């Protein structure tokens, strides 16, 4: 019963936190991105540590085994130093990562990155101001993600 409640609640949490309510950070808005977040296990292809926004490119195998190259944006290098202590050496091509992203509404393999972990679960970046949201909304997204992952692990 509890697990069922968790699923329902997680779904509800997604529904009550539409992207439209997320405040816009930096000079770019967040209207380009879907409300839902996805996690992707992939391999870093490129890490562009430049202004105006840092880009990460990674390859992912889709369900059919086809390799798809995704691109995701972060805040400026300056903001990433402040938020995650990141530097130009934090990622390099070949790194195995888990990317938590909000994909583009257009359907293209483009995204805004919310969080980055390494394949072993260690955190690279837990807070991405580029992805938007108040502290409460970020908390909901995090809890929602963790609940979904826990649920998946149990099953």
């Amino acid at each position, binding site marked *: 019963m509890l697990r069922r409640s968790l699923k329902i609640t997680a779904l509800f949490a997604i529904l009550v936190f539409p992207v439209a309510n997320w405040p*816009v950070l930096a000079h*770019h808005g967040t209207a380009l991105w879907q409300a839902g977040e996805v996690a992707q296990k992939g391999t870093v292809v490129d890490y562009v540590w430049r202004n*105006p926004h840092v*880009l990460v490119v990674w390859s992912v195998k889709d369900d059919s085994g086809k390799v798809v190259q995704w691109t995701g944006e972060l805040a400026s290098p300056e903001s990433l130093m402040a938020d995650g202590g990141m530097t130009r050496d934090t990622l390099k091509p070949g790194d195995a990562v888990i990317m938590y992203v909000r994909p583009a*509404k257009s359907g293209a393999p483009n995204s805004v990155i919310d969080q980055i972990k390494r394949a072993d679960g260690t955190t690279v970046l837990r*807070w991405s101001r580029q992805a938007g949201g108040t502290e409460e909304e970020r908390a909901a997204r995090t809890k929602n993600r963790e609940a979904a992952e826990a649920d998946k692990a149990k099953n």
Partner: protein
Amino acid sequence: MRNFTIESVILLAAFLGSGRAAWAQKPGLEVPLVTPGPGWKTCPRCENEAHVAEDRKKANVDTHAFDPHDISGVWGDNGIELDLKTLPPFTPYGQTLYNATKSDSPEWNSKDPMNICDPLGYPRAFAYNYGMEFIQLPDRVLQFFELSHTWRTIWTDGRKLPPHPPILRYMGYSVGRWDGDTFIVETSGFDDRSWVSEDRRGRRHGFPHTSEMRVVETYKRLNYGMLQATLTVIDPKVYTQAWTTTGTATLRPNAEIGEYLCVPSDSIDFNNRNTLPADAATAK
């Protein structure tokens, strides 16, 4: 069913009230402070709020002695956003100019001059700057802005504003003087291609101005670590009244200006690689 509903409500409340969850909290002192090396300081935007608070505490900014006629130092984080509550109505001509800034896309501001690194100009650099530094010299005050890695010169040698300058400037022509403990800056001679500011209400417009805009600012050091600022936009062709913003900037004792250049090729590359493919309106 009743228990199921209660459980759902409790869990939902946990979601809504989980702002204290470690993952959701803003970055703090656990994030290593990044500097170029020993003896170098971080940039104003490169340290988070917790590190800033710690630096300010160490520098005793609230009790430190200060000269009210010295506004030098690295100030602020991101600039002082223009106050939309005091935004006056547009004139008919101003409304036309504002309408012309409307984005081609509903999803991002495609007409923002910043997209291709056209200069922010003034007073947009007041509102959005990643931090700025005042340096006082005997005959002028220099103001360096982190964003765009640019500056303006505020002349304090008694000269007057040029009535009809031979060339218009994105940052305008500035003169300054002291009135008691308040530093007053007047600026005119603006190139009208910049925006006063982007309109953050939906991010689809910019606030326009003409080359006849005048900007008047006041700066007063309230204590060692706090600078009060006001900025008034006067452009009767566009705005029916003067538009005044008041705010404060905080001293950043452990920061120095870095090098945030807006590089056109980098901005174009960024937009081509992620913004334009993501924009459903232009991706087709």
